[in-house]
């Protein structure tokens, strides 16, 4: 596979990366390369310039930010799935990252690249919604942050503006929560035909106090099942309650449709996987 010719620049700092972007025509940021390089090899993307942000140290750390964990854009899936801070506080992210691709992909692919690419079948977008993450962006006009729920706009389309870099992701700590990410894997690609992410907290009485449920792979953008979460909050999460809540309240926005899985089937898988992740997350806490 042979891409068109392009220039290559390496940035050592965030500021330098932003400056280089301004000075290049039709540039793209390159991190782990696991989303961008394949489409370049197929000549579906033909950027004139690649700005390699892979050695910017400030983007490569996992930090304890008090109530939250801040994960730099360059943190690889392998680190997400093995970092003790993430494991202790955002176990849902740890679980999902461990299911991405294969060891080679996890060793090179990064959380920032994954989210910025906004592949609907990717494993992390649903997790970001379920963990109510904030996405930190750095751009020519300065820094800003937006909730994950406002980040994904469409297939391969995000709220990032021209020249902006996804710098970090921040998630509230959830040390005593039950978590489960499960996916119905496409047998060819390993991507999620339906990925379901659930994070929940029970009170001492066994009642559900907080609950997040979100999906990727099912629709063009990841979505949170807010209504299901609402209905189940305060319940005891019995199998019967879960089943009823999912059947009556799970709304799937315009499911994707391809030769492997039709829209109605994907929507049905969302219901099946919703039940499974809810039960599994609950079981962790009881």
């Amino acid at each position, binding site marked *: *596979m042979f891409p068109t010719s392009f220039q290559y620049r390496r940035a050592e700092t965030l500021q330098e990366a932003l400056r280089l972007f301004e000075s290049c025509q039709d540039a793209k940021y390159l991190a782990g390369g696991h989303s961008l390089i394949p489409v370049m090899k197929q000549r579906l993307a033909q950027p004139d310039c690649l700005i390699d942000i892979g050695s910017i140290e400030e983007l490569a750390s996992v930090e304890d930010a008090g109530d939250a964990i801040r994960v730099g854009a360059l943190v690889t899936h392998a680190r997400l799935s093995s970092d003790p801070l993430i494991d202790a506080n955002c176990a849902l992210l740890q679980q999902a990252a461990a299911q991405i691709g294969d060891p080679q992909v996890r060793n090179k692919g990064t959380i920032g690249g994954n989210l910025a690419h906004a592949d609907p079948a990717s494993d992390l977008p649903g997790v970001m919604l379920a963990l109510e993450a904030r996405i930190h962006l750095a751009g020519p006009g300065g820094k800003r942050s937006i909730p994950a729920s406002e980040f994904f706009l469409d297939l391969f389309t995000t709220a990032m503006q021209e020249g902006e870099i996804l710098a970090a992701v921040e998630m509230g700590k959830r040390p005593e929560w039950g978590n489960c990410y499960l996916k119905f894997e*496409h*047998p*060819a*690609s390993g991507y999620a035909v339906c990925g379901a992410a659930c994070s929940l907290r029970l009170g001492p009485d066994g009642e559900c106090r907080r609950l997040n449920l979100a999906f990727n792979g099912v629709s063009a953008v990841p979505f949170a099942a807010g209504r299901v979460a609402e209905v189940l909050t305060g319940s005891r999460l019995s199998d019967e309650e879960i089943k009823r809540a999912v059947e009556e309240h799970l709304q799937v926005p315009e499911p994707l449709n391809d*030769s492997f899985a039709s829209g109605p*089937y994907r929507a049905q898988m969302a219901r099946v996987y919703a039940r499974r992740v809810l039960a599994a997350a609950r079981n962790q806490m009881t």
Partner: protein
Amino acid sequence: MTASLFGKSIKRREDPALIQGKARYTDDLKLPGMLHAAMVRTPYAHARIKSVDTEAARKMKGVAAVYTASDIETSGIPGVVPVGWLLPGLKTPPHRLLASDKVRYGGDAVAVVVAEDPYLARDAAEQVWVDCEMLPAVTEPAQALAQDAPQLHQEAQGNIAFDWELGDSQAVDDAFNKATRRVDLKLRNNRLVAFAVEPRAALADYDASREKLTLYMTSQNPHVHRLLLSTASLGLPEHKIRVIAPEVGGGFGSKIPHYPEEALAAWCSMQLERPVKWTATRSESFLTDTQGRDHHTTAQAALDDQGRLLGLRVKTYANLGAYLSTFSTAVPTYMHGPLLCGAYAVPAVHCNVIGVFTNTVPVDAYRGAGRPEATLLIERVMDLAAQECGLDPAEVRRRNFIPPESFPYATPLNLEYDSGNYQGALDRVLEMADYRDLRQQQERRRQDGKLLGVGLSTYVEACGLAPSSVVGSLGAQAGQWESGEVRVHPSGSVSVYTGSSPHGQGHETSFAQIVSDRLGVDISQVEVVHSDTDQVPFGWGTYGSRSAAVGGSALAASTGKIIEKGRKIAAHLMEAAVQDVEFRDGNFMVRGSPDSAQPLAAIAGAAHMAHNLPEGLEPGLRATTFYDPENFTFPFGAHLAVVEIDPDTGEVKVVRYLAVDDVGQVINPLIVDGQLHGGIAQGIGQALYENAVYDQGGQLLSASLLDYALPRSHHLPSFELDRTVTPCPHNPLGVKGVGEAGTIASSAAVANAVIDGLKPYDIRHLDTPFTPEKVWKAIHGGE
């Protein structure tokens, strides 16, 4: 003398280089001054070409040439890739190296760009402007045969390439008149992408001063490629073409055919007098490598009340794709029809196959080639027969098997099965699986709402292709014998030249085992040379599980000739009568006098020094055999699959897979087991995952590994294998062949298991592949 390694699991000699990345494939080769070719294709599966503008591409810096069909025509070469097997009434529209009037599938190239590097070649290819008028496409036989269907070739009206039949239609009618029960089946055998891990590649080096072309290429049969390049594509005499297949990374049939791209690389090198390399991208492999299967079949079986088959009628539409690939005509006919009885004594059979052109990638041999299609059909029929007669699937098979005492067995479809014990293989696999317990388990699981399916498949394959006169009478434009030359060097080491052309099978190991065993020479002293038309006398190549049975037999025969000559020399040196000299454990000796022993090396030395040879005997110690087999060989076996089905999602998981295969004598059990493992995995792939899907316009939707699912290790259980050994009675090694056995049996075993698992839902039949949504819909009904 060293202990014989024949029948021993020695490690493959090929593997250290492969594992360490030291093996050299075609694309690894670089020659000074080498140019790179890229093909220009259109985005259409069917279109009329109005013009091809190469001006802009030609002017780009670093571009050596851009050629279109008219350049090839002007050069006066024959310029086609031909079909190699003719059938009565076959329509043979030309397949030109570059499309001139129309493109007929997405892989049809209209121009070739040659440039200094592969990036430039692709940049320039994007600057070739093809003006064409899109035409409606057909991708399925039913569409292609419709009244007002778009026509692919003016030479093939109605898009029909052939209409072929075999068997006795009247006898089948009579069988149905007698029958008390019948089974009807409509079956689609899904189309598969062959997917060799190494893409096709060619490096052509034309030496103008010697007028000689050397072509390194990914080939399963270099001599066949040389022959077709010479006579049909380039017009260069055979002695001026040397085809070398370096390391070849898998083929599964897709590197048998002669394709345009390799011939184009050669022609470009002849035009430019510089080496030219072409390597398919993975996308091009999906778009141009011949695909497999794609049968649309209806079948009826006549039965008596006891579940015995009285007759079988089969009608198949074979989707051939856009052109007739080299052996595309033989695969759905002679490689398929005669095997439709499987392991069963079916007195009357009739089979009609209609070959249809569509705007899809040409179809040709794919592991098993016709025989998996036959096996899937007859094994589905057997399960339906069991259901119809209220019998267990194992019992209905038992009632229909050809009994072990009736070999050689003449089938009603012109084959003579050589040897077998089909019941023996089935009994063994049922025992290994604890079949009765499995059925009880299934019942218990069903009561708990869990779906467990158990499926059987037995098979007989005709392989070891094949007696030349037989295939010749059936239309093959090729012989099917094999050459094997053994040269014993003066110091006693041995070089072996085989016309088989391995691409993963391990010939360098197993053929060395044969020769080492026969000559009593340490295996380290035996080298196997293959895949080079200037080194090997001739060869028909590796496919159809033929290498051991035909190529190996040729070598065994040559070692016999070496020993015969050695005895004459030894007798002369020992001053003994030839009939008193025996060859044992690598030594020639006077019978009963071990002190007289002379090793092969001593006799080889004497043969080459030739100071003292029997009168009239030529110096040297080498022998060549052109071995033409008496018959096909007929491996057989019984497989059993256990699947779990998730009723909520429709996902199927193979949880146990057991197989008992009989491939005759085994040269190297490790290699044989490896072949079975790969073959079984490939057949499970067809049953559960793999499917080449085209859209209405003829675009291949499953055109990358993101969409086309190959089975991976985590999809598969650990296989439980055993074998019985029924030697082949008509070749010197007793071997039958194992390259395709696993694939031939496993799709059917899994299909039967899945459909068995769905019994609580009253499902009679589903077509492969059993993708989750298909199974889910079958369970939950409706769309």
